[in-house]
């Protein structure tokens, strides 16, 4: 990696000041160190360790919403027994992430802000579109891990399973931007990746995720993923669903999918379709049809269509239990 300075920030304001315009924040470092070692990002001139920022490593439980500090680790999410009752989908998503060792240090903020895992982007000698090159090699080449949907020529998908699950739970990321707190829905947090090939999310340089707020309005949530392997493998497709289930009927339904689009894939028509319905195979299947209607599969990733369809159905049916 290139040489850089290293410092530890003790307040969010000083963190922002220290990172200036060419620095990056360091939390768990799982993604950042890989990017640095493979020279995938320019610079940075300074790494600002944010792990000592006060108050950001707590899970706060409210009646109407929970707040997860950006420094909460994945292992904390996985091990919180209250959380697994209130947000079982979030618990399940956390427990599927990487390996126990990585979950011990990886953070909520880092998971949301991680870069694409596209194997062309991560290959140090391939000048792909996401790195500012002219061509999406995946479109021409092997796209088995890539998107069924994209608003631009890059088809590398979002892989943050927390982002996908937060989308289903309608969570809000609170970001320190230009000196003030800005609230972003998950759709907003990733919107830029939909339109801009080089973007991984909508965060600007210097933006710092402070926390995520999750409303408790949805009483049921679920998460499922399929990978090539049984553990420690990225999802080929992931699916999160959440709803307020009362009297056997769904309300405020939300379904989001990961690994098939540059953003957590959500279709409002499907959410609306589900509201007021009692779940069964047929309803779940119709919702899946709506969610995948606009899919644009390629030769190597077309298998994701039936796989996503099955996952949507299974995840929705899990809301019943």
């Amino acid at each position, binding site marked *: *990696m290139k040489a850089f300075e290293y410092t530890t920030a003790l307040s969010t304001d000083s963190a922002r000041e220290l990172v200036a315009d060419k620095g990056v924040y360091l939390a768990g470092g799982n993604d950042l160190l890989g990017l640095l070692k493979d020279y995938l990002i320019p610079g940075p001139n300074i790494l600002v360790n944010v792990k000592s920022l006060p108050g950001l490593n707590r899970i706060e439980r409210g009646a109407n919403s929970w707040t997860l500090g950006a420094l909460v680790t994945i292992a904390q999410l996985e091990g919180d027994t209250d959380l697994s009752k209130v947000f079982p989908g979030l618990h399940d998503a956390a427990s599927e992430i990487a390996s126990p060792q990585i979950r011990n240090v990886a953070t909520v903020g880092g998971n949301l802000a991680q870069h694409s*895992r596209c*194997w*062309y982007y991560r*290959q140090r*000698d*391939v000048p792909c579109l996401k790195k500012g090159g002219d*061509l999406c*090699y995946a*479109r*021409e*080449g*092997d796209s*088995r*891990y890539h998107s069924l949907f994209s608003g631009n020529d890059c088809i590398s998908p979002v892989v943050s399973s927390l982002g996908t699950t937060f989308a289903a739970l309608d969570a809000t990321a609170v970001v320190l931007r230009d000196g003030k707190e800005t609230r972003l829905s998950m759709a907003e947090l990733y919107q830029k990746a939909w339109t801009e090939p080089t973007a991984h999310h909508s965060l600007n340089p210097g933006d710092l995720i402070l926390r995520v707020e999750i409303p408790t309005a949805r009483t049921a949530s679920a998460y499922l993923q*399929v990978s*090539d*392997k*049984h*553990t*420690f*493998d*990225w999802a*080929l497709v992931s699916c999160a669903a959440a709803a307020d289930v009362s009297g056997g009927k769904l309300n405020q339904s939300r379904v989001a999918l990961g690994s098939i689009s540059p953003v957590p894939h959500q279709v409002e028509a499907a959410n609306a379709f589900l509201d007021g319905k009692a779940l069964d195979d047929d309803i779940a299947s119709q919702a899946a049809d709506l969610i995948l209607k606009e899919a644009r*599969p*390629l*030769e*190597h990733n*077309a*298998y994701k*269509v*039936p*796989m996503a369809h*099955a*996952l949507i159905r*299974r995840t929705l049916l899990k809301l019943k239990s």
Partner: protein
Amino acid sequence: MPSWPTETKYISHPTLRVDAVPKVTGRARYSSDIQADGWLYGMILRSKWPAAKILSVNLDKARQVPGIKAAVVARDGEFTVRYYGEEIAAVAGTTRQACLDALRAIEVKAEPRNEFAVNENEARKDDAPQVWEGRSNVAAGPPREHGNVDQAFGECAAVIEGFYTTPVQIHNPMETHGNTVSWTDDGVTAWASTQGISSVRDGLAGALQLDQSKIRVITDFMGGGFGSKFGAGVEGMLAAQLSREAKAPVRLMLTRFDQALAVGNRPSSFQKIKMGAKADGTLHAFEAENYGTAGIGAGADSGGGGGGADLTMPYLYRVPNSRVKQSHVAVNAGSARAFRAPGNPPASFGMESAMDDLAVKLGMDPLAFRLKNDSNEIRQREYAIGAEKIGWKEKYQKPGSSPGVVKTGIGCAGAAWPAGGPSRSTQGEAQINPDGSVEFRLGVQDIGTGTKTVIAVVAAEMLGLKPEQITVKVGDTNFPPGPGSGGSTTCASVSPTVYDICQRGLQQLLKQTGVADARGKNWFAACKKLGVNPLVVHGNWIEGLSNRPAYGVQFAEVAVDTETGLVAVKKIVAVHDCGLIIDTLTLESQINGGVIMGMGYALYEERVMDDLSGVVLNPNFETYKLPGIADVPEIEIVLLNMPERGVIGIGEPATVPTAAAIGNAVANAIGVRVGSLPITPAKVLAALGKVPHVATT
């Protein structure tokens, strides 16, 4: 004629590895742990082009990087690189970061060739860019034919045609390739991660133009090789040159990224098989056309067994009318090397898949079909045992008839490793000290399979001592020469050698001390009578105590999710023979490892090359997928102990049939064949007809 003792205390019993404690506590020092005085890091600059002419390599700026002590080019003058990752230059420095910075400071002038072919199916086209200028990418051997194949197919009651493919598999031993090399005026010492200390010494001597006597190779511990570590490799030569220039030892261990590019792999196979049988289930006609790639070539480092793409067909079976055509396809990718049972796992997958497909078409039970056509008496016994253990009678069902979304199935396949057997030139010595301690020294190396333990077990048995009373030293070219650890030959080479050393030692003890039987309780008294000087005895491999080949069969039970395509292996039953068993514990470890490696081949592993950029897309364990603990099923091992056959190795046969058995179990579960390894969820869904058709661009 010598013979093994019939009543044994250690042979054929479980003995803990003699180096188990240092290994689990981290005290064992591997080549990558060697810290010779003043050592430097070494690192290699590799081609970022799949094909290019290298016009010049300027190392001046690299040498100016603080901490850099040496820089060398891989080849002088202009040269051609033919794959992404081929070596261009190397540097040595005091820190890893200094080396990384220096690699980026090297100025390479190159003319990249825009035309190259990294995949077999592109490279074998008539108008494909040539990997070797002026030579066709395809090299075909003469067809092999006997009987009257065309007529015979007309005489068959059932005929199947199938296309079975296996990917390029990367060796990926846990310890990467590499060496620490120290080149001084006195000669060269290389601490090598190798499965052949002698071949490394001879290779270094040739390349460096030094006397063999000036080179010492040491391998105290090594973390696996699977056939890819017989030579010092380009990385060894570069480490030596760097050491000479820097006047310091250089440790040059490859990274996992390097590992995927340049130090070996198992060739791919694309097997078009047509096979027919008569109504009674007798195989009658066989025709196969196979091609595969060994990268830019089979390579000089392929060692015992070769890295070519040819397969033994029709593998375990005799078919009276048979025609086989094979060809190799050169591509712009790293060269193949011998890989655990070269040629056998792909041949097993193709042939055993075809066997099941034909059995289904005949309406026969695939196990009965095998028993009818496999004349080997040992495998016949093993099939009977395995069938009982897996519950074949109760569990075998019509393909695809398992109810529900998650379908279960079972399958089986047979193994052979005809090339095994001992290395007859194996030698060794023992130093018997007056205090009764004894040290065995053999110039073999323990690749990780337990060779040191095998030596201790045999010596303890023959001398009437305990294995922990035997000191074992291997992995040093200063010791009497031993074989490379490959081809399932090591155990059959060292066991008779240790037997001979012990017999000679006892004879000499008798001669010098008059003790008629110095074994066991007489040992210490006899040794004491030696007086001041230890007794050193030399021994050789002797006839009559070892054998070949080994056979073996495996059964697999799987569950397949027909909506997601995910395959879960529930159980493997592995029934194996290897003559006289030395240590049941290390033997079982070998079989466990073979099964897990075979599982990786069946379900996960595949080198993926990118046509457009020419790079390896998955040079890491993130996307080059290997089985993890959660993927590994219950493995039930049944061992046939056959002392009458003598000692035989087990390394290769243990991994041969696993993928074929899993593939057959998957086909049995879902009712359709996934003829392409690895069997990924994507391929299962495609085989089930669930994937929408997308026009190729």
